[in-house]
C-alpha cells in the first residue's frame, strides 16, 4: 500500500491515489487532493457535495451522478462544473472514499 502526505498528515492510498482509510480524511486533506486534481479552491458547495458522498458511501449506497444531482446541493450540470472532467472519479478521490463501481 502506498502512502502520501497531505496537509502534514500521512495518508494511506491505493495505487490510483484513492484513500484506503476514510477516517483519515479532513477538510485540509481534501483541499490538497483537490489541488492535485486541478481544483484550486474548495467552496462550501464542494464541501457539501463531498460530505454527501461520504455519507452515502458510509451507508453502503451505490454512488451515481443521478443521486448527486438529486442531493439538493447541486444539479448534474453544477456537479460537472464543480469537478470538471471526470466528476464522480474526482469527487470520490477528494472525498476520501473508494473509486466508484457504478456505471451511471
Amino acid at each position, binding site marked *: 500500500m502506498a502512502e502520501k502526505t497531505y496537509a502534514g498528515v500521512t495518508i494511506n492510498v491505493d495505487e490510483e491515489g484513492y484513500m484506503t482509510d476514510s477516517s483519515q480524511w479532513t477538510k485540509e486533506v481534501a483541499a490538497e487532493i483537490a489541488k492535485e486534481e486541478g481544483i484550486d479552491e474548495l467552496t462550501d458547495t464542494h464541501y457539501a457535495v463531498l460530505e454527501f458522498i461520504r455519507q452515502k458511501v458510509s451507508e453502503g449506497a*451505490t454512488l*451515481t*451522478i*443521478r*443521486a448527486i*444531482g438529486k442531493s439538493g446541493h447541486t*444539479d*448534474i*450540470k453544477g456537479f*460537472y462544473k464543480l469537478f*470538471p*472532467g*471526470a*466528476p*464522480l*472519479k474526482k469527487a470520490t478521490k477528494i472525498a476520501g472514499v473508494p473509486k466508484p463501481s*457504478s*456505471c*451511471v
Partner: protein
Amino acid sequence: MSDEKKPLKKVLIIVAKGTIEDVYAGLVMANGAVMEGIETKLFFTFFGLDAITKKKMNSLHTATVGNPSMTMPGGIPFPTWLGGIPGVEAAVSSMMRKQMEELDIPPVDEFLEMITAGGGEIYACKLAVDMFKLKKEDLIDDLNGIITVGEMYELAAGDQSQIIFT
C-alpha cells in the same frame, strides 16, 4: 512502437434501433463516456429516433416475439406464442423499465438530460427524420441538430476518436 498511453478523447455513438435494450446500451455508453471526461456525441437514426421523440421516448418496448434471449422469471424459456398475446409485450417492457429504475438508471428523457448536462451532444439523422415525417418539434428540445451522414462523420473527426454502432 511507443508505449505512450493514448486515452480516448472523443466518441460518437450511433443508435439505430428503438428497443429498450438497444437504446439503453447507447445511453449508458454515452453517459459513461461523459463521466470520464470524453467528448461525446450521440447520433440517432431509423427506429433509434424513438429515443429522442418526445411522445415515444419514455415508453420504449422490448421484443417478446423473435427474441431468443428472452426468459421468464426463474430462467424458464419464454415461449414465442406467449409473447404474441396482447398486453404481454407491454407488461414485460414495463417490468424491464422498473428493474432499471431500481438500479438508479433513469428514464430516457432524464438520461438524455444527464448526458447533455455533462456536455454530451445529441443529433438526429436527417434522412430518417424525413422518412418518418418527423418535425423538429416532435424531437427533444435539447437537440443539437438534424444532420446528414457527411456531417456525422465530421463530428467524429480527430485523433483518438471512435465510432460505436449499437
